[in-house]
């Protein structure tokens, strides 16, 4: 196994892997993923202090298989600087979302790791949201829409939410579309709000122009929008080819709606059929995202790009859960170059073939029958 001496050496090799994987999806060799993972693990073990401490505690110094790489829990991103970047080189930081958390996760980037983040998200977004025929396209091509699509993003624009990896992602995919409108706002407390008037006006305008719409937002922002539609009995019939991307993250605020109900409401009030609604799974602690279908195919569970792999881990044994058994999602993301490639989430999932289906979150601190008190987690 050839050694990779530095992150600067690693990144070009990762780029080669990513390009090859896009050219022949599904044919990426396991050995190459393994080689890159083992190399990145060794770099991070030596360069990310808190990760090195965990590896020493576990007495893991080298790995033969990517599955043996110790995973760092997402909570470690709240308490420690999980990064190999010296403070002066940390040009960007992404925080976990939600105002209900005491301390957000922090994921630091420099120009290079941010570029990798963008290179990771772009092709996988394109492939799933814009359709398989777009997956080989260059940045400038927009093959999925017949006529100039209107992009409406329900988050604040990246400039107003510089610490949101989601807003950054939506900003990154913006050139894929014609016009773009961000209708989210950051209010005085730093929480996100949705400009409903502006959103509705843009939807109506696109509808009358017969222009398809691409709507991107958090499930929470969609619930807010759809509740507004329902309250005003304002039903949109968006042009054929319109589509939506929703990503988790109610984060304990507002009204939660189960995924099925949310999608039914999107069909009912926006006229976007189930086949054109894409689910995204991502978080500030990762640099790659999983999607639950290739529009407009039927869903088959969430799947990460070939440079990231997910396991479903039994909470009892710490080993991979059996098919059909609920466990916790663990992600090995080669695009997490300067932090930790192996991340243990608190999301619950069931493996479905090659993908996984999200089923909930690990229980918080609240005892059954007794309720929340001050806590540090």
């Amino acid at each position, binding site marked *: 196994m050839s050694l990779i001496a530095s992150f600067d050496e690693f990144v070009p090799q990762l780029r080669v892997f990513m390009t090859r994987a896009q050219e022949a999806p599904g044919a990426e060799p396991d050995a190459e993923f393994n080689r890159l993972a083992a190399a990145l693990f060794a770099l991070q073990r030596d360069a990310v202090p*808190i990760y090195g401490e965990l590896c020493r505690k*576990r007495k893991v110094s080298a790995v033969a298989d990517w599955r043996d790489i110790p995973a760092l829990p997402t909570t470690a991103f709240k308490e420690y600087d999980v990064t190999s970047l010296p403070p002066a080189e940390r040009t960007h930081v992404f925080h976990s979302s939600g105002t209900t958390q005491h301390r957000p996760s922090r994921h630091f980037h420099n120009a290079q790791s941010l570029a990798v983040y963008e290179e990771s998200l772009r092709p996988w977004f394109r492939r799933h949201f814009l359709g398989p025929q777009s997956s080989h396209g260059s940045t400038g091509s927009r093959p999925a829409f017949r006529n100039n699509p209107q992009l409406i993003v329900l988050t604040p624009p990246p400039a107003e939410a510089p610490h949101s990896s989601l807003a950054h992602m939506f900003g990154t995919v913006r050139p894929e579309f014609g016009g773009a409108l961000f209708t989210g706002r950051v209010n005085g407390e730093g929480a996100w709000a949705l400009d409903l008037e502006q959103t509705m006006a843009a939807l109506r305008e696109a509808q009358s122009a017969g222009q398809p719409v691409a709507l991107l937002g958090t499930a929470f922002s969609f619930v807010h929008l759809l509740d507004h539609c329902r309250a005003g009995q304002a039903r949109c019939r968006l042009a054929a080819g319109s589509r939506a991307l929703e990503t988790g993250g109610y984060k304990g605020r507002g009204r939660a709606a189960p995924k099925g109900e949310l999608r039914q409401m999107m069909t009912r009030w926006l006229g976007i059929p189930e086949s054109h609604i894409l689910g995204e799974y991502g978080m500030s602690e990762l640099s790659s995202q999983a999607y639950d279908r290739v529009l407009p195919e039927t869903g088959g569970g969430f799947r990460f790009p070939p440079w990231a792999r997910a396991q479903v881990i039994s909470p009892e044994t710490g080993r991979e859960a059996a098919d059909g058994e609920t466990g916790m999602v663990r992600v090995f993301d080669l695009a997490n170059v300067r932090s930790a490639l192996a991340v243990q989430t608190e999301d619950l999932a069931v493996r479905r073939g090659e993908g996984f289906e999200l089923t909930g979150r690990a229980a918080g601190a609240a005892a059954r029958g007794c*309720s929340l*008190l*001050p806590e540090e987690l």
Partner: protein
Amino acid sequence: MSDKLLKLPAYFLADLPPEAALTPGLITEACQTLKRNRARYLEGRTTAGIVQRLDGLGRDWLEADYPFRRHVLEAGPAATGFSAAVLAAGLDSFFQQLTADNLDRLLRQELGHPHRLDDFYAGDHEQGSNRVALARGPQLLAHVAPGNIPSAVMLDMVLGLLARSAQFVKCASGQAFLPRLFAHSLYDAEAKLGACLEVAEWPGGTESLEAALFAQADCVAATGSDETLAAIRRALPGHVRLAGHGTRVSFGFVAKEALAGRHPETVAARAALDVAAWNQLGCLSPHVIYVEEGGNVGAEGFADLLAGQLEALEKTHPRGQLAAREAAGIAARRSFYEVRAAHSPDTKMWASAESTAWTVVLETEARFQVSCLNRFVYVKAVNDVNQALEGAEPVRDKISTVGLASSGARAAELAQQFARWGARRICPLGEMQRPPLGWRHDGRPALGDLLTWSEWEK
């Protein structure tokens, strides 16, 4: 199906098949039936008769071949998630308390005289005065039972019987198993008493059903989160009284003299019993054990001993299966503390291998920490009791029980200090989840709070 399983007759709403939908009309009708039955069968009963019946029932439940007990131990693990051994220990703790002597003590404590629910009597300190009094319970007492452990609601049902109240026990979804069995055992012992009881389950906050229940009740005894209680208070008609028990947490305190002897493992064993009882899910179960430095073993040594005792208890009283969500909560917390322990010598963790059965986290930081429960306990080193109290200050108004390992004059001194600080109950470590029948529930007279007095100045 095992021959140990009873075929329970359909006496209660909770006996209906799951597909049978409850309606407000059904609840109203059930309440009216309960009140009629109470007038016919319960109101005129003597305290002595009820005490005798309960005493017999307590003894029955302790018998190994009592059909209801066997049923609980056989079907309980699947229905409740508690292992048979944990259920058996919980039943023993509760029913050993249910004796005529203890009931008599409770009546004297709360009423000043054991027969004041039957007739006018002078209390112990009113002898020779011309005042006598009698107490009456609510006509219909509605219980909103907590979702965590079943023993508290069984005690509340006993109090309701003493108060001669018809009782409607509303359980959280999927939590009716033991209250329902207890109600059946009462029905079996005396059908007339059972006819004054109703048990049903529905998801808390189902407004139409709760409105129907609250409209019929005179008094609601509710245990749950502060938010749940606030919601119930808002939903109650003005004349209905609420005996509410909100969010409570508990901790243990091991004084240095308790660890001065040659057998510190016996102290750790008592702490382990408190952690294992009802899998730590009750409000009286410890989240944190504070250990005062200066004994023969320090906090770290104690944590190590506690881990050993929890491992031993797992063999005799296994925790049982958890839902994936709960197990994941433990696994996530363990991951967090594993990282912290890798980073700093101030944190150490002991954990069961290949399972989430038990976890001990040692920290030098004294701040009270809310556990995810199911046998996940914090051990915190403190220099003295003041440091423990400072650490627990954020939850001061929520503290129910302090399990104390100490002795002699020091124990009395510490008990004073905890009580003045705000703890409602101080008990020996190892007894935290075994409150006496007559305990003042979180600082309130549990029976007395249900009653209304009539006084006669002769």
